[in-house]
């Protein structure tokens, strides 16, 4: 639990602030560009009216994916962890300026990566669409931030719940290992031909399932018990799920390929790993679900708890969906379709996005001694982002299934398939617009709260309908 708070740990942390401000800004920018990209898919004539290379779909699509993974989610998770870790370890950070420089460096890397993709286009590599210099910037920034996060982790190992620490440890080792290997093999002459494709899938798995998912699980396992006042019940089940997650997650990407350059045994291994990972996810679900049982009223009132609840169920849904896609027959039909974008939407917007939002609502007041206003924008944020993510994931998934079935019928011409996709793309566009509006609402509250423009009613964010001001279990004033 969060009972090892020290006043020093609660000091305003500028590095976390930089990362969170960057995260919110990149999300807004990415959401806007995402709408522009879908508009071009929906109305191909736009490209004829405005033939500008750097805002073409070929540049926008990889850029949006880059901004969301590296800019919004990674930056945001690092930011909230910089608030959380000194509080759970009870050991404050030193070298604050160095950490702030690393946080600025991460934002600079995202900025340079964005400029590269806009002007020169992507290099085509999966989840690594930027140059070696951008990787070096990310790596350097991560080394400093990662060292900061691990500092004191060993000494305070037994002073709190074990599972968040285990997931943090896994993520902090997996990220540099995956990024370093991908960088060395994909850009040098070390990996010829099809090995490059294998390496791209490995890095895809590392980035999503061994970096972002474990970080989201750190927040879920640390903050859900703190917010609900209930500890996770079975440590042995948690340990089993953790070791299965760390061992199997790196193989998941292989299940996305079907035949072609991937050796068949590797694809089979990917399928088995994805199905087995489903069991690990079920284990974590069994651990986290009881924490939310009977907490309906609190979920209705507390913003962060509601975001965590949606994020937790999205975690289960994402991996159940991945396991379904790995099934023989389904995989052959859905490879090279929009189902992939649906899975990404489910992971990024529903799972990571909601956990990140919940963590920001829970932790920012605790670190900066600010409060959240009880403002209608909170309702906008929750409903528009949830609705947007649901529309996005379901429309992409359905579009992909239709696309896959049509592609498997050689009598259906490609232009007909494109016209089949159009109604789904309208729903995708509506989902993206909804999500953007929700994110705009969040940004207005986030920046206004940072600048203390609104009168804050509570350290914990509550929806405007409720007049009760609950105590915040994480806030220093509460202790």
């Amino acid at each position, binding site marked *: 639990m969060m009972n090892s708070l020290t006043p020093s740990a609660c000091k305003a942390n500028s590095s976390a602030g930089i990362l969170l401000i960057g995260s919110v800004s990149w999300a807004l920018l990415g959401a806007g560009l995402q709408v522009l990209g879908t508009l071009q898919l929906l109305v191909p004539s736009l*490209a004829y009216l405005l033939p500008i290379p750097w805002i073409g779909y070929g540049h926008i699509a990889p850029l949006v994916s880059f901004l969301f993974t590296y800019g919004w989610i990674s930056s945001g998770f690092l930011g909230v962890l910089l608030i959380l870790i000194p509080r759970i370890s009870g050991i404050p950070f030193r070298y604050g300026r160095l950490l702030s420089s690393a946080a600025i460096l991460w934002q600079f890397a995202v900025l340079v990566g964005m400029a590269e993709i806009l002007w020169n286009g*992507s290099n085509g590599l999966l989840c690594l669409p930027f140059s070696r210099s951008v990787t070096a910037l990310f790596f350097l920034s991560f080394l400093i931030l990662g060292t900061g996060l691990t500092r004191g982790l060993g000494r305070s190992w037994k002073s709190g719940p074990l599972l968040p620490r285990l997931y943090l440890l896994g993520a902090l080792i997996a990220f540099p290992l995956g990024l370093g290997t991908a960088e060395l093999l994909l850009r040098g002459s070390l990996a010829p031909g*099809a*090995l490059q494709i294998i390496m791209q899938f490995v890095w895809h798995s590392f980035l999503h399932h061994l970096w972002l998912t474990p970080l989201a699980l750190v927040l879920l396992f640390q903050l859900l018990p703190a917010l609900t006042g209930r500890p996770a019940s079975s440590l042995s089940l948690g340990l089993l799920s953790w070791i299965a997650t760390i061992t199997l997650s790196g193989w998941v990407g292989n299940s996305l390929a079907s035949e*072609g350059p*991937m050796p068949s045994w590797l694809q089979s*291994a990917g399928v088995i790993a994805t199905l087995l990972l489903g069991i690990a996810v079920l284990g974590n679900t069994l651990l986290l679900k009881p924490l939310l049982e009977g907490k309906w009223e609190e979920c209705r009132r507390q913003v962060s708890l509601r975001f965590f609840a949606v994020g937790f169920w999205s975690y289960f849904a994402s991996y159940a969906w991945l396991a379904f896609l790995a099934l023989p027959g389904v995989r052959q039909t859905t490879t*090279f379709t929009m189902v992939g974008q649906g899975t990404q939407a489910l992971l990024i917007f529903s799972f990571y996005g909601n956990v990140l939002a919940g963590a920001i609502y829970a932790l920012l007041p605790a670190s900066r001694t600010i409060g959240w206003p009880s403002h209608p924008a909170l309702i906008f944020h929750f409903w528009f982002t949830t609705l947007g993510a649901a529309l996005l994931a379901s429309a992409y998934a359905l579009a992909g299934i239709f696309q896959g079935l049509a592609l498997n019928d050689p009598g259906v011409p490609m232009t007909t398939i*494109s016209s089949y996709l159009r109604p789904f793309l309208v729903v995708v566009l509506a989902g993206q617009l909804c999500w953007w509006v929700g994110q705009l609402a969040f940004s207005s509250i986030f920046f206004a709260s940072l600048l203390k423009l609104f009168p804050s009613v509570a350290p914990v964010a509550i929806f405007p309908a409720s007049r009760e001001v609950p105590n915040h279990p994480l806030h220093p004033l509460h202790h």
Partner: protein
Amino acid sequence: MKSTQALVLVFLALLFTWVGQVALGFFQVGKMEPILNEETNYPTPPVPSGLAQTGARVFASEGCLECHSLSVRGPSGSADLNRGWGPRRSVPRDYLFREPALIGQSRIGSDLSNIGLRMPESKDLLMHLYNPRQRNHNSTCPPHPWLFDSRVAGPILEKDALSLPTQDWNQLLPSYQAKALVAYLQSLRTDYPLPEAPLK
């Protein structure tokens, strides 16, 4: 569980992932060699020209992979061969000389593994790049006019100029990038047999 035990477990788990995919993949696919045709003494798959290798980078930077794949699947569970996207399925050896080696993620457009076979004429490919709707009115592919230069024409159009109605004595000439991209697209063909994927 002690922190050192956890650290060892994480290392072992990640090592298993890394060795299982990267190291074993290296020994299986990374050491693959081309097949030498004893009659012609040419390797298969053929080594692409320097211009085609430059074109591969243009292909990636223009984002063609966002809508096109580069992998033909076999007859079980897919209609790729029936759609005429290639004479046989793609295998790891086909990607031996591709730098960067890419397969794409989505098929909003057709698979391009054998576009050099299906559309061998550079004029057709250049026309498609300039205006995809010139050949197919329903095409959703975006145009790439920035890959072409507009220059004043003499009495006769230059050899490379696109055969489009011109205005103000101008002609449209493909840039170096357009030529490289076309060379790359023409190099995309798998009409050679391999022991693991014979032509039928």
